[in-house]
């Protein structure tokens, strides 16, 4: 292969350049005087961040950042910002200087720790030497999934991820408690105008009709291939939610709610976490520990299965099915929570519009 620059040094320089761009975006955000500008800058920031994460060998994180930061977060921010004032008045100097000095002090404090930090890209640095390296070495034997990030996320640290998924569900419940909205889908949304882009244009409706099935399939593809390459339940869930949000933007939230009623979406969010946890309990019933996927299948049954071609000859069907199972739960929980949150904000917007018109 052709190389223009010596590879290891070039990628560090490229990463540093992209990081400079990110810092510039933060500066622009500091100076921005309009909420819409801030939201767009945040979206650009997330997309650039995804690019930077790609350079930093973190494709899984890049994937998540691109779909969450530039996609779903931006939509939720726009939904919340639509009916508030756009202009940000400048702050009084008296209220600016004290926090500014505090932040500067924080910056200097962090900079003082610089001498104790490992060199950028140092392969022998403490974070990369011990547990991270152990995961890399043992994953083929213990788990069998080529993607170590998925192996750590779903299997080694499966209990931790169960907690994270529950936090997402809890946040969704929090939004619903704050913004209300009953289960009765006749009540919340009457006619949504604000959160629809160019209603009636055949260009957008044709594009949406063409793309939404493909995006849905892609979400399932990302879920199924999480153990081979970048991807997994979190990314798949956000992508599926993005497809549903696109549907709501083009055809109206009411149409989406008709297809996937509020009650169904909320139940699915809880079902996802329940499914995750119940896989842990199945392992207990089979004599293993909570979320110990090796105990999911009895050895006799597993011996009868065709050899999984992952990881040199070892049988890892228990791990494979366990990871796929909990990732499906994560996908269901994330997709439903994000959709429920979007429903809540979209319902709010149309109701406050009515109040304004009345």
């Amino acid at each position, binding site marked *: 292969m*052709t190389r*223009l620059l010596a590879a290891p040094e070039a990628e560090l320089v490229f990463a540093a350049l992209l990081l400079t761009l990110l810092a510039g975006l933060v500066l622009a955000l500091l100076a921005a005087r309009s909420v819409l500008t801030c939201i767009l800058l945040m979206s650009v920031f997330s997309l650039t961040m995804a690019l930077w994460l790609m350079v930093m060998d973190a494709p899984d994180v890049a994937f998540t950042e691109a779909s969450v930061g530039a996609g779903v977060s931006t939509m939720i921010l726009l939904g919340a910002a639509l009916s508030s004032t756009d202009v940000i008045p400048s702050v009084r100097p008296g209220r600016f200087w004290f926090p500014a000095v505090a932040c500067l002090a924080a910056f200097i404090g962090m900079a003082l720790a610089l001498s104790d930090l490992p060199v950028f890209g140092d392969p022998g640095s403490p974070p990369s030497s011990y547990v991270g390296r152990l995961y890399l070495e043992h994953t083929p034997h213990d788990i069998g999934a080529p993607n170590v990030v998925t192996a750590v996320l779903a299997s080694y640290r499966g209990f931790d991820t169960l907690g994270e998924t529950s936090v997402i569900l809890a946040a969704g419940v929090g939004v619903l408690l704050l913004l209300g909205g009953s289960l009765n889908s006749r009540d919340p949304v009457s006619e949504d105008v604000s959160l629809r*882009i*160019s209603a009636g244009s055949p*260009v*957008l409706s044709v*594009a949406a009709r*063409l793309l939404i099935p493909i995006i849905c399939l892609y979400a399932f593809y990302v879920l199924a291939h999480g153990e081979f390459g970048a991807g997994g339940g979190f990314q798949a869930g956000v992508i599926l939610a993005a497809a549903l949000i696109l549907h709501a933007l083009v055809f109206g939230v009411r149409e989406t709610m008709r297809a996937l009623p509020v009650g169904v979406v909320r139940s699915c969010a809880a079902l996802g976490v329940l499914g995750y946890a119940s896989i842990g309990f199945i392992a207990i019933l089979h004599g293993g520990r909570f979320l110990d996927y090796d105990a999911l299948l009895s050895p006799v049954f597993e011996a009868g299965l065709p050899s999984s071609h992952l990881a040199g000859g070892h049988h890892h069907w228990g791990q494979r099915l366990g990871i796929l199972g909990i990732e499906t739960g994560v996908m269901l929980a994330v997709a439903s929570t994000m959709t429920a949150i979007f429903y809540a904000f979209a319902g709010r917007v149309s109701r406050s519009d009515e109040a304004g018109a009345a």
Partner: protein
Amino acid sequence: MLEAIAWIGSAFIIAAVGLSIAGAVGVLRFPDVYTRIHAASITDTGAASLMTLGMLLMAGLSPAAIKLCIVWLFIMLTSPAAAHALAGAAFGSGHRPILGDPRRPSEDET
């Protein structure tokens, strides 16, 4: 031979970078939203296509090549819809385009 194809691929990518820069310059030089969308669409179409072509040449016959083609198709499907949504939103919210010769703005107003 393979080496030469990879070099041609890099040349395409460098050309794509040049087109992107030209598009960015156009966005800065053109007078209003609508003309700027035209400049930006150079990056959407020309630069993206050249970039994909360059990467295709560098990837050779591999699964990555199929994925690149799919990505290119996806860009070609979504970017006009996005540009249309943007232009339509600007037009719908009452931004009047500058028409005729921008050097003599009063003459050609319709």
